[in-house]
């Protein structure tokens, strides 16, 4: 249990997860429906906005996948944002900067590959669960396995299998490349001026914040897309549900039927 020997990304990943847990506990200490506290209100607002977006991308059966997607989004967001905290103390004798000990956990391939593997196994499990083992194996043969007597599945099979393995690879490499690349650019901007030339790093930090949020959002959105592709039970016609209109989904949501006031009614009553 010697903490000095643990890799730095592991400690930072655990720290990000603990931060999320502490913030969540702080938010829901005294949950109140009619008068939420500030932290509870902020979390509810962000989660509601995100669930609307992910619900459209997930299609039917969105409720059972939402916890994973939202957990991935918030964890990756907090891991990415940790990279903004400066923590370089001093230099080595030959002039090189010391390694920072607060980095983003996702700037290491281990974290991103682990997250992508979680998504990969979950998607395959969802495919087997919704189609059965035989249907899941049959979907690799493509949407049109035979045209007459021409066996098209010889073309579809390797493409589908390679496609299945490329998905987690591209997920992990996209996240790793973006976050680690930002780290490198940050240090380049640091080295372009003197050690404490803050304005150069400030502009890079703004770009870094934007990229952090976008990459976390893209990871979660692609997870939604992969889940919706693999868990539709009518073959490959699930694409029509991608980004389906939010209004159609919200009409069937549980809390829409509790008698919530809709904006249309307010407009008619006020106008």
């Amino acid at each position, binding site marked *: 249990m010697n903490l000095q020997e643990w890799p730095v990304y592991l400690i930072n990943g655990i720290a990000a997860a603990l931060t999320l847990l502490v913030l969540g506990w702080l938010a829901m200490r005294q949950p109140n429906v009619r008068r939420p506290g500030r932290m509870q209100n902020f979390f509810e607002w962000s989660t509601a906005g995100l669930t609307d977006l992910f619900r459209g991308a997930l299609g039917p059966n969105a409720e059972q996948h939402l916890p994973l997607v939202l957990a991935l989004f918030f964890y990756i967001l907090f891991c990415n944002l940790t990279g903004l905290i400066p923590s370089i103390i001093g230099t080595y004798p030959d002039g090189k900067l010391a390694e920072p000990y607060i980095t983003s956990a996702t700037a290491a391939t281990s974290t991103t590959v682990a997250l992508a593997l979680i998504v990969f196994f979950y998607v395959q499990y969802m495919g087997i669960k919704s189609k059965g083992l035989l249907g899941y194996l049959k979907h690799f043969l493509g949407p049109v396995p035979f045209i007459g007597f021409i066996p098209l599945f010889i073309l579809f099979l390797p493409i589908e299998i390679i496609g299945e393995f490329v998905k987690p690879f591209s997920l992990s*490499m996209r996240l790793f490349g973006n976050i680690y*690349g930002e780290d490198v650019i940050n240090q380049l901007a640091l080295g372009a001026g003197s050690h404490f030339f803050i304005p150069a790093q400030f502009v890079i930090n703004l770009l870094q914040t934007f990229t952090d949020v*976008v990459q976390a959002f893209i990871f979660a959105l692609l997870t939604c897309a992969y889940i919706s592709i693999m868990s539709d039970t009518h073959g490959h016609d699930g694409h029509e549900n991608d980004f389906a209109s939010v209004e159609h989904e919200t009409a069937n949501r549980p809390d829409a039927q509790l008698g919530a006031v809709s904006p249309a009614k307010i407009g008619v009553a006020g106008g």
Partner: protein
Amino acid sequence: MASIYFGLLALGAALAAPLAAIGAGIGEGMIFASAIQSIARQPEAQGRVQTLMFLTFALVETLFIFGFVIFLILLGKLPTPDQLNTLIQK
């Protein structure tokens, strides 16, 4: 032979990111242009168009990031000055 290897390595590392950036720049320009045009045509579709814009932006950016990661990998394989000195002296 080793000098040819290091020379080609440096050339490959230098050309990886810019060549990837050409395609990424053109693609992203088209994405944002079409997003702006569709929002200008129909302002009430801004939410959904914006979501799609960010999604496709990240997908195109990925290909540039692959090239950037290759650049970073090759950067680590370039020789240090001591190795270059021993190489030149041979």
